[in-house]
């Protein structure tokens, strides 16, 4: 034993200088050097081409001149303030939630809600909507920040906040749909654009999750009727494309309901998306349930918990946290699949609006601009979801323990 071996040593410095890093990672052999140079050249060429096109040739007017259509569809122009007001409520509650739920996931969602409103404000400022709309969006960002700063100093119970969210959801729907008088009714058939995409995705996620969990539990139930129904539902829905389900919801739902009840397209589309997504949630959750050792059920029963309590307090908390990544992936697909309601249910969500805009003679040939814009919108939304999911996984210690 040397004297050195008996002491606790600091770990050796393994960091590399910038040149050494480049050499080790990009130019460590002649072959890797060739790949690096070739890929670099390709990237440079593509950036220059697209950049040149985006600056000199692209007619971004197709986006700025139709921005209201893209955002809210045919929602009447003189009523659009209601959408902004709903967004303000969301911003305030988002700020409060970021302060109350200290985990990073909610904070990430609130941050991206604010960030995308800043981006949108920039776009609105140069568009038909003008500076007033841009200012309103920036005020929302300010509201998020103010609500966050204020809520951090207040003792707000998680339960109170959950109740506030519930109230908000109801109020926001009433605000958007209207009740007459000073708040004239706006039929859901004119809701469109990003507003509709967002509503369909949020409703689909919120509703399909509990239904999917129930289906997963039903599939393992001791009651044969429940088990057979759950299994049949899951297998049938997973065997059919979403568009088919949307078509069937449009045609078959009226057949089941008495003649005078007319279900609006948006409701049908939401129901179709929800049931479709629930079947996939159920399969994910089933995987999580299978991973729970039987000793957990036995211990829960032995201390006197009944079946519902066992699932609620012991099984689901463990099963659900292990399936978060898979479920977020599912919800990102759901978000993008809402585009199918244009085909399957005759609604104009953001992609449908894009095609409607392109059908106008003056914007003929502006496909590239429109689709790039829509792709960017979906990217921001999906990226937000996946970032929030990483934070949630980290907070819940998925993969640890």
């Amino acid at each position, binding site marked *: 034993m040397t004297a050195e071996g008996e002491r606790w040593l600091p770990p050796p410095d393994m960091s590399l200088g910038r040149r050494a890093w480049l050499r080790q990672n990009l130019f460590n052999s002649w072959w890797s050097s060739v790949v690096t140079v070739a890929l670099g050249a390709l990237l440079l060429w593509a950036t220059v081409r697209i950049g040149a096109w985006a600056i000199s040739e692209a007619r971004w007017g197709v986006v700025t001149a139709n921005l209201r259509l893209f955002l809210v569809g045919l929602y009447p122009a003189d009523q659009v303030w209601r959408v902004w007001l709903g967004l303000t409520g969301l911003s305030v509650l988002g700020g409060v939630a970021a302060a109350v739920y200290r985990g990073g996931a909610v904070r990430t969602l609130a941050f991206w809600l604010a960030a995308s409103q800043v981006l949108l404000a920039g776009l609105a400022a140069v568009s038909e909507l003008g500076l007033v709309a841009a200012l309103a969006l920036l005020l929302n960002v300010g509201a998020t920040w103010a609500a966050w700063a204020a809520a951090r100093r207040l003792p707000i119970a998680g339960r109170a906040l959950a109740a506030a969210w519930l109230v908000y959801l109801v109020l926001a729907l009433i605000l958007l749909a209207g009740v007459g008088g000073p708040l004239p009714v706006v039929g859901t058939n004119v809701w469109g654009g990003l507003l509709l995409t967002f509503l369909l995705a949020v409703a689909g996620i919120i509703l399909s999750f509990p239904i999917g969990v129930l289906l997963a539990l039903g599939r393992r139930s001791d009651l044969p009727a429940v088990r057979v129904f759950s299994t049949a539902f899951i297998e049938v829905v997973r065997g059919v494309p979403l568009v088919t389900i949307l078509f069937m919801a449009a045609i078959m739902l009226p057949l089941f309901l008495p003649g005078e009840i007319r279900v609006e397209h948006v409701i049908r589309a939401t129901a179709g998306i929800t049931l479709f997504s629930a079947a996939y949630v159920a399969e994910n959750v089933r995987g999580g349930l299978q991973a729970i*050792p039987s*000793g*957990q059920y*036995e*211990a*829960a*029963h*032995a*201390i*006197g*918990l*009944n079946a519902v*309590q066992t699932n609620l*307090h*012991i099984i689901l*908390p*463990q099963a659900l*946290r292990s399936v978060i990544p898979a479920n977020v992936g599912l919800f990102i697909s759901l978000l993008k699949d809402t585009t199918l309601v244009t085909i399957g249910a005759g609604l104009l969500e953001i992609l449908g609006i894009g095609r409607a805009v392109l059908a106008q003679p003056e914007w003929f040939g502006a496909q590239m601009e429109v689709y790039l814009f829509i792709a960017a919108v979906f990217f921001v939304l999906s990226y937000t979801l996946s970032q929030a999911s990483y934070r949630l996984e980290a907070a819940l210690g998925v993969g640890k*323990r």
Partner: protein
Amino acid sequence: MGDQEPAPGTAMAGDEIIVCRDVHKWFGQHHVLRGIDLTVRTGEVVVIFGPSGSGKSTFIRTINRLEEHQRGQIIVDGIELSDDLRNIAAIRSEIGMVFQSFNLFPHLTALQNVTLAPIKVRHWARDRAEHEAMELLTRVGIPEQAHKYPAQLSGGQQQRVALARALAMQPKIMLFDEPTSALDPEMISEVLDVMRELAQSGMTMLCVTHEMGFARAVCSRMAFFDQGQIVELGPPWQIFDAPKHERTKRFLSQILH
């Protein structure tokens, strides 16, 4: 017969609190319990031992209905075990159980593991449940671990949390299924000490274990299980010093060496 059963929930020291008559259990075609007769009195500690696969776990699990018996009768504190869900709930809230593999809830802290059932089943206020839970954790010697998760505890500490969790429901009977078999040797005594203290406090205990030192010092009777039957039942001095059956003798000589 029925008239002589004590009214539910009124067991006194020395009364028959567990009565098993001709209990049979099959797993498919496999006859696992083949006519078990056993009566346990309040305050008694009965140790069950025997070769692996002889039905010891299955038997004690029938007593809190984690397994169903298919023939015979099990009466716990005057309540006969049947398919009636209310009976099962009533019996489970009187019986605590400790498992070989602890089975703590990994997503809850030690304290939450202990308070869960009192809060959800007994509907105690959180303050009261936490106060009692801290007393139990102190009794099993680990109050300072209350806010740790099971994964952060040693095996012996986990089993002691499991003991506190079972005791939190203030059971009249405790079932133990090889509580020290999964523990490293240096942790066995810390669990046995708590069990010994529990026995001295007058708890009725049914304990599957091969810790023969514990059995000799603590229990009132021992039951030797083999192939789904109680081959021999008697006080420890008889089992150790004058076993009546050849099979008991052979098994003891195997595990005592």
